[in-house]
């Protein structure tokens, strides 16, 4: 992809919102109550498809990185998302800051994969 993901998503969403609803109306449903709804739904669906494609492309590498980072602390429990998070949760409940650091790193990587601007504190 040569364009940033948000740009692509916006382009697809805009195109669908502008095209799908009018197309439905031209197909003989000018009074269909969900013609407008279909346009919005299609736009959101397109965004989800884009996210899914990004997830498919980068998710496995992200998971491998999370496993590698957690293995020194958790051993084999690091190998799957649910087992890893259960173990990190147990460690976090005891005040383990290393567990929190791993969870933050995972959350950062997952958010970064969305291709959106970083959260900006309101303070």
């Amino acid at each position: 992809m040569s364009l940033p993901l948000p740009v692509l998503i916006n382009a697809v969403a805009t195109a669908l919102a502008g095209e799908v609803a009018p197309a439905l109306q031209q197909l003989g449903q000018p009074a269909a109550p969900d013609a407008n709804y279909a346009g919005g739904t299609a736009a959101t669906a397109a965004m989800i498809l884009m996210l899914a494609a990004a997830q498919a492309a980068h998710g496995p590498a992200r998971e491998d990185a999370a496993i590698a980072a957690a293995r020194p602390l958790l051993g084999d429990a690091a190998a799957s998302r649910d087992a890893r998070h259960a173990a990190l949760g147990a460690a976090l409940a005891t005040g383990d800051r290393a567990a929190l650091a791993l969870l933050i790193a995972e959350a950062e990587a997952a958010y970064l994969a969305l291709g959106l601007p970083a959260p900006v504190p309101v303070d």
Partner: protein
Amino acid sequence: MRRRALRGCSILPAEALARFLSGHWGEPVSIAGLKRFHGGSARQTYRFDATGASGRREALVLRRDPPSSLIETDRWREYRAIQGFAGSAVPVPEPLFCDAGPGSFESPGFLMREVAGGQAAGLLDPQAYGEHGAAVGQQFFTALGHIHAADPASAGLAAPAGHPALARLAHWQAAFAADQFRPEPVLDAAMAWLAANPPPPPPRISIVHGDYRSGNFLHDGAGRLLAILDWEMVHAGDAHEDLAWACDPLWSHFSGLAGGMLPLAAAVAAWEAASGLALNPQAWAWWRIMAQVQGLVIWISAAREIIDGRSHDPVLMFAGTIPYRFHSLTLARALEGL
């Protein structure tokens, strides 16, 4: 909260509206321009033009539950809240008729007059209010203060039993317990901290809108706030709840401004002036964490609807992905400072 049934075709036919309004107006009514708004998965929202045989013509909005919904709702509570603020300093759509049963609209719902020319911000819109952000924000946070200055009894809202903050925590803990589908250690840790560090009780119980944020109001695109929408989560409680939710970074359009409109200090000042309340720093810190917890539970519940096949609405897929990851990150970072 009970589970919703799988929804089938749930389009409201124009004939049903014409039949209802003909009886309500006492004359034959025709319906034109019926369209359903995208989003707002808990409710269906339609707009349409009704024209009576006498020439009477009104642009109306209907909000109703999906016909197959089994979710427990209190349509009257939402409607009464809107009614209570109609004609006040809090702009709301003009409420017209409510039926808490399925008789009028095939499921519980209510009619309002359409707010002409209104537009609402999208979550990912980086320039949601353009050059009018400060003006709209001043009105937005002032209106919030006016809501919090009102008597909950006027909207028929009972005060929460016990500590209002812990009551809300219990509410979201129960929702999380019902919808959790995988380990959520950050959420668990945040809930444990909230339970162990309750804020001071508020000086008075307020009407809490429950979902007061950018995107849940209409503005005219030229700096004027037109109507506060989406009162379906209204309840009585601590005013800090609304303020913290409205100022959560998720609703800031990546700007660092409260609601994407005002610097935080200005937003708080507008709210304090209109509400007569003073921000309590301890309560504020607690409710800011709580806002992220509430968000995460909502996004997890949305994802659960999809996972369990009860809904195929992409809006819920969106909620379970983008806002989920946003709050997973901000809440994890917030834990560092606790």
